[in-house]
Every structure is written in C-alpha cells, then in structure tokens.
C-alpha cells in the first residue's frame, strides 16, 4: 500500500516537472506596457479601497503611458475614470473638463462607446449640479449615440426620468421610471434607482401609499447591493411619506434609521479596508 502511494507521488512529481520543463515561459511584456498595466491595476485597487487621491495619481500615470503608446481607446477609458474619480472627490468642474476632452475632440480619435459613456456621465454630473438644461443636452447626445440595444439605455432612461422629476414633471418621470423599474435586464442598481424615482414622482403626485411601497422596494434592492447613501435616501423617502400618511411612529423610526446610516457610512468605507 505504502509502495503504491510512493509510486503515485513519484508519478505526480514527474508529471509536474515534465509539464514545467515543456512549457516555455511567455516573453515578458515591453517595459512601458508593464508599467501601464501596473498603474491601471494600482488605480483600480486604490479606488476599491476608497483611496481616491492615489487612484487619481495612478490613472494620471496610466493616461500618460497610453497617450505615449497611441492607445486612444485606453486613453478615453482612463479619462472617463479620471472624471469619475474627480466627481467622487467633489471636483465636478475637473470631472466635466475630463469628459469634455473626449466630447469636444474634433478628430475621430475616441470610440463611440467612450463618447456615449462620457456624454452620459456628463449629464449625471450636470444633473447633480442642478444644471438641468445642459444635462438635457448632454443626455440627448448620449441617446443619439445609443442604439436601441446599447448597454446604457436603461441608465439613460432612468436619468431622463430623474431630470423630469427634478424639473417638476412628475407624470412623465413616473411613466418612464415604471418601465425601467420593471426591466430585469436594467440591472439591480438601475432598477432600484428607477424605483426611487418612481416613488419620488408618486410622492409629488400625492400618491403616498404607492410611494411608500416603491421606496420600500428600492430599499430592499439597495440593501443587498451595500450602497449606504442610496439606503439612506430610501429611508428618508420612507420617513417623509410615512409622515404624510399620518404614521408618525413609523416616520420617526425610518428617520432615525436614515440618520444612523448617514452617520456611519463614511466610517464604514474606512473600516472595510483596514
């Protein structure tokens, strides 16, 4: 028995050694490409860890390398990422400047996908800044670039609904958000966003019971996604509508939960990466 185990062990070692020996190691990448991949990897790692400044630095490094290697598609992606990081750092003007580098380029350098993403993200940032007119123009540009089956069509529709709601057109916002809210292919995050817009529109139209149900549905979707700020928004919506429905006790509980989430969400990002 021991002899058999010994033979199997020997065979395994022989097989491994043969496999190692027969495989020629792949050639190393050129130095600039290695550096580029290292910078990109570091930037994404930093972003996942909430280290926005480091992510910004590494994306900048990656962009220089991509531009020096004539990788225009990669450069466009990195510029979009730099804009996103700048937006997360609350440097919205810098974020818009990065996106405009893609959108205002006259030569056909950047892929259509990147232009669509840039236009959409510009619209999101402008909406957050309350510049709805400019946001609408940018969103129209994104819609124009988005064919019927483009992957971002649900994001575009949700943002369109959000802009309608913020402009006071609750009926249209509700109609549009309802479609996205039911579309499974929109993805959980965008479905939850659409449900929140739907609830907001219903709240505005004084359909408080419906609003409460949809805020609840959005909350149930946001919780497994682990998005603290969205959870807080949902809870605040629930608190408002519960109060309007005269359910004071429920409203107070929702408001307290929202405030606890708001208080701890920043700390949770830091502790998650300790």
């Amino acid at each position, binding site marked *: 028995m021991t002899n058999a185990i010994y033979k199997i062990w020997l065979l395994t070692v022989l097989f491994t050694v043969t*496999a190692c020996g027969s495989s020629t190691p*792949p050639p190393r990448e050129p130095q600039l490409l290695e550096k580029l991949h290292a910078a990109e990897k570091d930037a994404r790692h930093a972003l996942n860890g909430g280290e926005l400044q480091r992510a910004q630095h590494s994306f900048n490094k990656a962009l220089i390398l991509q531009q020096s290697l004539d990788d225009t598609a990669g450069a466009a992606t990195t510029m979009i990422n730099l804009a*996103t990081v700048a937006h997360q750092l609350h440097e919205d003007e810098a974020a818009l400047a990065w996106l405009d580098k893609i959108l205002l380029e006259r030569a056909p350098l950047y892929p259509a996908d990147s232009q669509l993403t840039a236009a959409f993200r510009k619209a*999101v940032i402008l909406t957050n800044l309350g510049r709805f007119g400019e946001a609408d123009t940018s969103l129209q540009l994104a819609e124009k670039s988005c064919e019927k089956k483009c992957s971002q069509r649900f994001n575009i529709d*949700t*943002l369109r609904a959000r802009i309608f709601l913020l402009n006071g057109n609750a009926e249209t916002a509700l109609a549009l958000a309802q479609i996205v809210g039911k579309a499974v292919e929109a993805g959980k995050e965008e479905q939850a966003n659409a449900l929140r817009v739907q609830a907001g529109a219903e709240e505005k139209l004084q359909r408080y019971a419906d609003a409460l149900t949809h805020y609840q549905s959005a909350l149930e979707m946001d919780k497994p996604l682990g998005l603290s700020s969205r959870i807080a928004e949902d809870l*605040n919506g629930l608190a408002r509508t519960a109060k309007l429905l005269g359910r004071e006790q429920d409203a107070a509980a929702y408001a307290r939960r929202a405030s606890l989430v708001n208080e701890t969400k920043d700390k949770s990002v830091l502790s998650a990466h300790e």
Partner: protein
Amino acid sequence: MTLLADKDDRFKNLFGKAALFVLLAVLGMGLVFFWTGMKKGAFTPKSPIYFVADTGLDLKEGIPVKFSGFKIGKLTSLALDEQGHVQVEIEIETKHLVLLRQDSVVSLKKEGVIGDGVLDISRGSEDKPVLVGGSKVLFERANGLEQAVMEVKGRVMPIIDDVHKILSDPDGDVRQTLKNVRQLTAEINGLASEMRGTRQKIDQVLVSVDKNLNNEVGPLLHSLRQSAVQAETITTKLNQDLPGLLNKVDSSMENLRKTTETINKSVQQTVPQLPGMVGETRETMGKTREMMGSTIEVVNGLSTMWPLKGSVPVPEKGPVRMDSHD
C-alpha cells in the same frame, strides 16, 4: 673568497639586476601614488579660508566644499574656541579663489532630503574684492529635514489649533451658521405646506370665478398659480435636500475635528523623536530601496511563470462603475 662560486653567466651582476627590479617597482609605485595624488588634488595649491559655526553638528573633516555643484575644496579642521564656538578651516583650490568674493557665504546643505552634508559656497557680490587665502567668510545652515519639520510644525500647529477651536466652539461662527440653517429648514418645512395650501386655494378660485370675470381676472390668476407652483417646487426640493445636506455637513465637520485632533497628537508625539529617527531612516531607506528593487524583479518574474501565471489577477478593463444616481 666566496663560499659558492657563481659560475653560471645568468648569476653575473645579480645584485645589480635585483636592485634595478626593486627600483623600478618602487618607481612604479611612486608614480601611481603621484598620479593618484595629482588626481585627488594633493599637489594643487590650496588656500585656507575660515568661518565660525555656532555648533559642530553635521560638520566633519573631509566634507566637500562645492561651488556651482563642483568640488573645489574640503573641510580640513574643526576646533572649539574659548567662547564655545566652532572655528572651521576649509581649503579651497587657489585657482578657484578668483571666482569668489569677500562676502561669499558658506552654507551647510544636504544632498537630497536625507543625504550627506556638503558645504556650498556662494559667489558673493560682483562689486566686492576677490577672496584671498586666510580670509574669513560667513556661515549659515541650510534647512535640513529636522529643521524643515520643526518649521512646518511651527507654522501648522497654530492653524490646527485655530481650526479645532472654531469647530469645537458652540458659539463660534460655524456652529451658529449651522444652527441658523437648521432653523431655516424648519421654516422652509412650514413654508412648503403653506405654498401647497395657497396653490390649492388659487385652484378653487379659478374654478369658482365667474365666466365674465374670467377673461379679465383669469390670466392674472393663472400667472399667480404658476408662481405658486414654482415656489412650491422650490420649497419642496429644499425641504427634501436640506436634511441630507445638513447631515453631510455634520459628518464632515466631525471628521475634520477628529482629524485636527489626530494630527495635533501625532505631530506632538513624533517631532521630539525626529532627530534620532532621521539617522536610522537614512540607513533603512537605502536598504529598503535595494529590497524593493529585488522584490519587484522577483514578483515580475514569478507573474510570468507557468504555474503562477493563472493566479495573478489580470487588471480589469473598461470604465469604473457609475450609474444615473452617482
């Protein structure tokens, strides 16, 4: 008579041959020493220049004297005088003295942030006479890491203290402003309900107004209704957004207060230990740089090897996530 007769021709003049060999070797060695000495500037005429330093810290015999980045001399001696000052002698190559003036200043600098010390001599004013051997010049210490840290501490600490006081003071401007905003939020809450009521009343009036009067009063009422709707939208939006905004301000202020406290404590604890730490850091940094170089090489090598290639994560591609609500 010699004990053993040197009959072999090759042993003839053996002493002379050995002497010549030794002489050549000595001459060769002498030439090497001379050449090395000449290269090192041992035979270059030098002139002594003196200066006084308040302390001998970081000054030692042999440290180079540089002018515009070129070595033109070195520190030759250090001595403590009766007043406790340090008398320093430097030797500068005489041919370079013409470049320096009587008001030249010698400053002790570090090569790099934590490099070795060098004495940098400045040219001086053009209108002053040329520096001559045996002259005395002024000395100053350029900011080293320790001094730079102390200077930063001196400047930053009062600011941190001020920020801390401003954030902690319940009667301070910042806290008072927040209090006012909170009051405003409560008022806006009331205003929103009031505006809703106003708009509803206008709606009722519009329905009940007499048809004859409608032509005259109607447009006016419609315009009034539109204004009421706009005001209602604004107040409702403010009502919705302000609590979130206030929460963000609260949390940011708390974070800022805690950060200032932490910085304060860290600076107070770290600064006294710095002078000792800097010495150790220089050594450690050198070793770390060496280690990092080797580690990066090893990791890069390993990541391309067959058995490990698959387990090294490939960098993600594409734009980072952002949706319609980010």
